[in-house]
């Protein structure tokens, strides 16, 4: 026991000496940005894409100039486990403990909504790259998002169906029990009938999550004489619906939404989905300029094509950095600086993102163009056109 105590005292003394020797890094000249992302849990791919994108950004631009002064960028990645409670804890920790200037994420609405409340209460700018729930940014001046919302995507699809597919009558088939498809189906219907008059959506067919047989709905759609079918469903359900349509002898176009682009659509659907269109955030195949550079670099670094999350995270980060630059200089008082960054974010005009130009509305949602892609014969999602809200 005595030896142990002596050892402990010596050890502590040594530790003290070492401590004084350790010099604190020049903390004043770093800018910290926090990432509240799901690195473990149900959806680790989402977190991995976000982290990959951010690390690539940091390699490329480790320093930024703000108001003539150079700062080192530091990213702090924290894991929210794809859980609401953890997202709230992580946001609180990033703000109060790490003292970040701004937060990127959470990605999914189920975490972004409660975490947005935290960010807004602590007056810290937060951008969720991927969350589509309106409540994330609603009445929260400090919270922004990097993607368009469903009330915008619905009209985009309606306009595209009208202009490019010359549709006069449309049909919709959607899952009534899932939030995203149901919402989008209703927005599409409203927008399409806004263009072609009431009754122009001739079939509005619903099913319930997990259904495998769509022949009844398809029969109604065939009878209705629609020129196009809108299918705002997830990649796992799309192949079943498309095959059901083909069996009924449907030869007209099928139009999808951004949920087609996540996951392994082509692996499940194969040749059946080729030639159809869907609206999404950006197109990987046939991209140009900055977008192409991003895709090539990401593919070279990580050996896979970047998904929507990676691209939107890149843009959210770009927005945050741009806003920090636009403040014209940081005072060093973190609270005042956060508000400055928020104001700069809100007033950004036409930010040239790789997923399109962005300008924020008063709610903190971006006004941005959607991309419509065509699934080409090689099974790639090829850029077809960019659709902007009318």
């Amino acid at each position, binding site marked *: *026991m005595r030896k142990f105590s002596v050892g402990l005292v010596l*050890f*502590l003394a040594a*530790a*003290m000496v*070492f*401590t*004084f*020797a*350790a*010099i*604190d*890094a020049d*903390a004043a000249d770093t800018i910290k940005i926090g990432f509240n992302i799901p*690195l*473990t*849990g*149900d959806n*680790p791919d989402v977190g991995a894409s976000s982290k990959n994108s951010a690390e690539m950004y940091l390699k490329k631009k480790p320093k930024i100039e703000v108001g003539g002064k150079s700062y080192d960028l530091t990213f702090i990645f*924290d*894991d929210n486990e794809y*859980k*609401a*409670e953890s997202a*709230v*804890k*992580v946001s*609180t*920790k990033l*703000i*109060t*403990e790490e*003292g970040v200037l701004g937060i990127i994420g959470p990605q999914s*609405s*189920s975490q972004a*909504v*409660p975490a947005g*409340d935290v960010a807004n209460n*602590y007056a810290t700018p937060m951008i969720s790259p991927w969350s589509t*729930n309106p*409540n994330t940014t609603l009445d929260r001046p400090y919270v922004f998002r990097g993607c368009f919302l469903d009330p915008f995507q619905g009209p985009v699809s309606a306009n595209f169906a009208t202009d490019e597919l010359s549709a006069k009558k449309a049909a919709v088939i959607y899952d009534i*029990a*899932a*939030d995203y498809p*149901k919402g989008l189906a209703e927005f599409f219907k409203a927008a399409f009938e806004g263009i072609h008059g009431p009754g122009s959506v001739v079939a509005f067919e619903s099913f319930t999550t997990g259904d495998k047989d769509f022949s009844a709905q398809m029969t109604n759609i065939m009878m209705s004489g629609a020129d196009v079918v809108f299918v705002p469903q997830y990649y796992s359900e799309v192949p079943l619906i498309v095959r059901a349509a083909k069996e009924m002898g449907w030869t007209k176009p099928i139009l999808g939404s951004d949920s087609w682009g996540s996951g392994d659509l082509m692996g499940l659907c194969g040749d059946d989905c080729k030639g159809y269109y869907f609206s999404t955030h950006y197109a990987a195949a046939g991209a140009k300029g900055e977008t192409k550079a991003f895709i090539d670099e990401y593919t070279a670094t990580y050996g896979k094509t970047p998904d929507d999350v990676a691209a939107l995270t890149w843009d959210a980060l770009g927005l945050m950095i741009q806003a920090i630059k636009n403040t014209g200089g940081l005072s060093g008082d973190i609270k005042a600086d956060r508000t400055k960054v928020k104001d700069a974010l809100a007033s950004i005009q036409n930010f040239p993102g790789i997923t399109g130009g962005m300008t924020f509305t008063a709610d903190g949602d971006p006004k941005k163009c959607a991309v419509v892609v065509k699934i080409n014969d090689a099974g790639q999602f090829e850029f077809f056109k960019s659709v902007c809200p009318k």
Partner: protein
Amino acid sequence: MDQTATLHPTEGMFLRIGHFFKPVPLMGYLAGFLVCVLWEQMAGDGLSAILGLPKMPVLFGILTIFKVVAGVVNLLIKGDAFDWATLVQIPTALVYLTVIYLVPLTLVCRLSVKPANALARFLQGFPLIVTALVQLGLMYAVLHIWAGVSDYRLITLKLTLIAVLFTLSLNIINGYMGEFSCSHPGFMAIGAYMTSLFTVGLFTSDKVLGDAVFSVGAAYLSFPLALIFGGIMAALGALIVAIPSFKTRGDYLAIISLAFLFIVKSFFENMQSLGGSRGIGGQPNWATLPVIFITVAFGVWTINNFVTSTMGKALNAVRDDETAAEAMTVDTRKTKMAAFLFGAFWAGVAGGLLAHVLRYVNPAMFSVQKLAEVLAMVYFGGLNSVYGSIVGAVSISLLGEALRPLEILKWIVIPLLLILVMVYRPTGLIAFKEFDVRQVFGPKEVD
């Protein structure tokens, strides 16, 4: 106790530590912690600065240490850059822990043995409620000062307290009753939604549930009512599971209750009037630390009373041998029902608190993941014991926070710990231990 000579040296040390703290009553520990948190409030920042720590350690320095460990791990696995200067934070965090917590706690505990015991003995002359309230008040003061230092501590503490209540409510069914029920997150969901329905629907305006029905300044006074409403609705939900499933036992009950969990989740996903899968947000900020502390303390007290009552004994009889219990005139069906509904009630209350801490609730929060978490807490802490549930919930919550920097490795470390506990202590860390309130709050008499 003359075995010390033959013992392994470390065991001897533990024994000595045990001896050292043996005469300290709860009052003494509370006094010790009170001194610690006050000392930290005064000297914590200064000491961190002297030690060269980037910020005051939040969770006793554990988080600081694991952050550095995570850096080393990432260096070894992925070859990420690692700043060797941060290695020094491991010893300094330990120094901080020693100086701020260990030393004052030890000193105060030992020095206050006599007065603390005297005070406890004096308070014992009054009804139990007096001494309980005094010591709970002290406990709250400690927590309040401790959490006042940082908001991250506050949110962690709030969620940990809620986890304690939730774990304990499941322990009634899985520990005391000896069944394996999987429907608990479902009850929590019902409680969370119904409490939110009460508060958001009646007192706040939002898009999902429409305008406020009442606008009263003192609306927060209705929060206990809201929690009770949530608890009762959860108990009603439990009734729906209990009626068909209590004809079965063991695995079948587990499967039925798991099905119920999915039914509840789907129900809330399909209820458009409750926001569907988008959930309900904008709950008023009524779940403050005192409210949570009082609710959890009250919950622990009633659950402890329940399991130590005749009903609790009957419950244990049912667990050990249902047929024998029936033969000994125990009304097994009634006993099981009461325990199940009681457990569900407190799970509902815990859900109500959770909804108002996060100020958002959606069906995805109450999935199988939540179930795995609470089961881990129950079995890690110990079956059939109030102590065990508190220990399990607190340790898993703190571990989860401390190991967060390790990312995916966290999910290797925590399950490994669980496996080790299951191997060496199959019923959990502190199982089958009676929790006698009078003894806990009373003085420690040492011969």
